[in-house]
């Protein structure tokens, strides 16, 4: 029994960190040492990641473990994702030590981060539509506040407004979808929904279909998939860079884990979309979404003038790649191919968690130095900050899919999965988009290394925590090239378990 509860350790670590921050803030409001705050949040992330990894890779607990009457489930998928959340949280919290230096409400900042992470880890384990909604809100609400953290910065506020408004709209769409699914199936538990789905699709195809589509919309918001992506460029651009890192890596991953579990487990495609009981072919919907998302994301990114906004769009493009994992569930390629595709999506999110976080943290470094936003602002930065620029180069190339980091392998897995699952043309779309992405990613690299530096730039000091976070992310990104072998088995197993 005690071991049963052990599986909640990752989520617990986040919650514990949040509570600890509460206490610290409550006890010592005025003279709180920022290092302590950051350390607590970072420790929370590290512990969560470590606990997930241990649970995932060892046999410390029997998986999958269902809790609270099946409302929560801890399995390979949830652990992989809590690992991502933990890592990103740790990196972001570490980096924020320097970033928030001199800003007010630091305790609240870390508190919101850890609470959002708690929400995400619950999303990863949600086994019921109710928990999905609650957890999603738990992660979203702190996020809104985090985006608005720089409350005197008009960009930050505008970003928060847009994020919040689109978020509120999406969450009501999601909730309405859930209510329709409930209307059609009479349950919110995934397993029960799944078992009732076939009959519901036969009886109330419209209700179930609209419900599923609306749920898809809600999920698409969280994953910043086109056309629910509109908030993302604004939010990522306006938010403080560590928050943008957090949102674009962890929050997006959280959206995906919900998507994976809800659609794969609760709406089995052969129940909701077979000729006799046809409600909605969500695989088709995801296919459209994937193509739109990667194409629009990448093409829009190609012509940006500001690095952060470019990263925002590229982040959308990556969401499109990950969506391929769902688009590949056509039932054609068999379980092997589908678990490869889905597992590849998870692996991509894992690698992406590091490389994208690192990239945004590099932007945080730029904001710390007040370099400016445009590509030109980074001209010749390699002379002043070679280490950070090497790291950024690794991030960029890895994001582009060059084999300097794990990004290559995970994209490769995605393509292999897509081909195996019969959506080989999606692989081709990915290839085209990757090629384009190389162009705009290399613009950053070009600016840093190739362009002549601006004359009047002054770099004052090298923030150690931010550097530590960036370098860690870079090292992990590179190590994930050979080291993805550690995770790939687990990811494919987890995906197979879902299917």
């Amino acid at each position: 029994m005690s071991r049963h509860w052990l599986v909640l350790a990752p989520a617990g670590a986040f919650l514990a960190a949040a509570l600890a921050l509460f206490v610290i803030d409550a006890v010592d409001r005025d003279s709180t040492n920022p290092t302590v705050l950051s350390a607590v949040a970072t420790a929370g992330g590290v512990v969560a990641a470590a606990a997930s990894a241990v649970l995932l890779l060892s046999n410390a607990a029997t998986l999958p473990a269902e809790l609270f009457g099946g409302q929560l489930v801890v399995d390979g998928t949830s652990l992989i994702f809590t690992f991502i959340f933990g890592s990103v949280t740790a990196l972001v919290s570490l980096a924020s030590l320097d970033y928030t230096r001199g800003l007010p409400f630091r305790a609240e900042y870390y508190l919101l981060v850890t609470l959002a992470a708690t929400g995400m880890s619950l999303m990863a384990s949600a086994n019921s539509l109710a928990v999905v909604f609650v957890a999603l809100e738990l992660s979203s609400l702190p996020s809104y506040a985090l985006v608005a953290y720089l409350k005197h910065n008009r960009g930050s506020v505008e970003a928060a407004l847009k994020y919040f408004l689109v978020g509120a709209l999406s969450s009501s769409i999601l909730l309405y979808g859930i209510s329709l699914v409930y209307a059609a199936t009479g349950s919110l538990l995934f397993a029960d929904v799944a078992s009732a789905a076939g009959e519901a699709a036969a009886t109330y195809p419209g209700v179930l279909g609209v419900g599923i589509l609306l749920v898809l919309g809600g999920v698409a918001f969280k994953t910043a998939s086109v056309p629910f992506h509109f908030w993302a460029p604004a939010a990522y651009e306006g938010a403080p860079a560590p928050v943008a890192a957090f949102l674009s890596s962890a929050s997006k991953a959280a959206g995906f884990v919900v998507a994976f579990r809800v659609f794969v487990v609760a709406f089995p495609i052969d129940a909701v979309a077979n000729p006799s009981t046809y409600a909605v072919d969500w695989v088709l919907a995801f296919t459209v979404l994937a193509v739109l998302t990667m194409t629009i994301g990448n093409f829009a990114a190609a012509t940006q003038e500001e690095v952060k906004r470019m990263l925002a769009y590229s982040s959308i493009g990556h969401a499109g790649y990950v969506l391929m994992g769902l688009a590949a569930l056509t039932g054609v390629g068999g379980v092997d191919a589908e678990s490869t595709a889905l597992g590849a999506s998870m692996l991509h999110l894992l690698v992406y968690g590091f490389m994208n976080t690192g990239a945004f943290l590099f932007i945080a470094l730029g904001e710390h130095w007040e370099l400016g936003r445009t590509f030109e602002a980074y001209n010749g930065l390699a002379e002043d900050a070679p280490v950070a620029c090497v790291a950024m180069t690794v991030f960029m190339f890895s994001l582009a899919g060059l084999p300097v980091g794990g990004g290559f392998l995970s994209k490769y897995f995605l393509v292999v999965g897509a081909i195996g699952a019969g959506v080989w043309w999606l692989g081709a779309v990915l290839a085209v988009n990757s090629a384009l992405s190389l162009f705009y990613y290399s613009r950053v690299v070009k600016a840093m290394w190739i362009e002549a530096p601006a004359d009047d730039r002054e770099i004052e000091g090298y923030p150690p925590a931010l550097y530590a976070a960036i370098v860690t992310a870079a090292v992990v990104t590179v190590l994930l090239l050979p080291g993805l072998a550690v995770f790939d088995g687990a990811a494919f197993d987890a995906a197979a378990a879902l299917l």
Partner: protein
Amino acid sequence: MLVEALIAVPLVGAAVVAVAPNEYAERLALGVSAVPLVGSLYMYLAFDGSGNALLGGDVAYETFFEWLTLGPYAVNYHVGLDGVSLPLVVMTTVLTTLSILSAWTPIDDRQRQFYGLMLFMEAALVGVFAALDFLLWFVFWEAVLVPMYFLIGVWGGPRRKYAAIKFFVYTNIASLVMFIGFFALVFGLGDAVGSTGLPEIAQALRAGQLGALGLPGTGAAIPADVLALSAFVAMFVGFAVKVPVVPFHTWLPDAHVEAPTPASVMLAGVLLKMGTYALLRFNFTMLPEQATTLAVPIAAVAVVSVIYGALLALAQSDLKRIVAYSSVSSMGYVILGLVAYSYYGVGGATFQMIAHGLISGLLFMTVGVFYNATHTRMVGDMSGLADRMPVTASVFVAGAFAYMGLPLMAGFAAELFIFLGAFRSTVLPAAPLFTAAAMFGIVVVAGYLLWAMQRSLFGPFRLETDYDVGRAPVHDVAAIVTLVGLIVLLGTAPELLYDMMSDATIDVVEMGGELP
């Protein structure tokens, strides 16, 4: 573990050099690069492999351990050298060391980064030639591009940014196309292969295990022959960019002109060979039937590359651009040799890879030495350089004649073998005509090189730029003279390499030759 050492030493060296003080970087880099140079020469002497690595030959210096698994496919760390790859590895180490020497003068900024990247590239190049697993190979393949991108972009000429991006994006797109083509094959093989190992795939293909590739969702399937043909075309196009073959060549002159001398040397000397090496390893070894089916268009492309590239070279007035376009021309011979599927054709193509690597490296290096002194490369801006820089001019003359295929220099042997092989090709219809057409390249190449030499080296001394032109520094001269020596050595005794090359390519030839 020698191959690993050959990769690891420059890699570690790159890291060390990258943090060393600028003023020691060049010497340090030279020292580091000497290690793989000596190592590869030792490996050449101690080489005991036989046969083709992909077709069940006895591979030398082999290492194998498991890396990843992906569904039904195991991705392994598998490296080893055969008679095709070993010479290329040796050429890589030789050219890297010499390029580093040739970089001492022109690179006066951010040296540690420069030499770090050079060493990094060396490691990746050795990896490309040694890898026997597709994914591993691809990792190295792409890793080569990154340092080259920086080398062009940071230390290049005025339009370096455009050139670097163009090079980078163009060749990467090509890699993607090739990647897709290759994986179509792997999927077509289905359960016949359990890994992405190149030997396994090549042998499965040879055993005729390629099946139809089902197009899920439609119920249709791509028949095996269509699949193989389209995979062949995709891979060919992918590699053709790298080689480069007309009409995929336009990145090359831009990259060459803008790149600093050592990068040009590596680009022309080794990077282009990656393309032909891959063509040999993938297209012509794995899909001989398709290669013979497409023999005529491929040969036509080769001939067009030779003649058109030479004509373009003739129209240039920038020395580097001339040499760059002539690379397009010379690499056309390699394609012709490969598609001939004959003993001398394929062997000669392999030999030409080495020969052209050394010769074009030499020419770029020499142009670089001139540039260091004159700060111009435009033929019209200078004349009579031989007056001030007699040794360098002599070396340039030697290199130019080697390029023209002067006998007893490496280029002649290579071209002769290719022509012999192509002329008698049983695979290529009207082989003599194609060969004769390609051979006309030797006239045009003489035309533009002689013309360029006449105008820049000879005549009364005149220089448009305002620099004191003196004799080249010793290390530059050492580098170029060494190359001349190697070129003459290989030209008089091609047997030094040709033996192992033909040993490794004869299986390929037999595959193509045995076909109806």
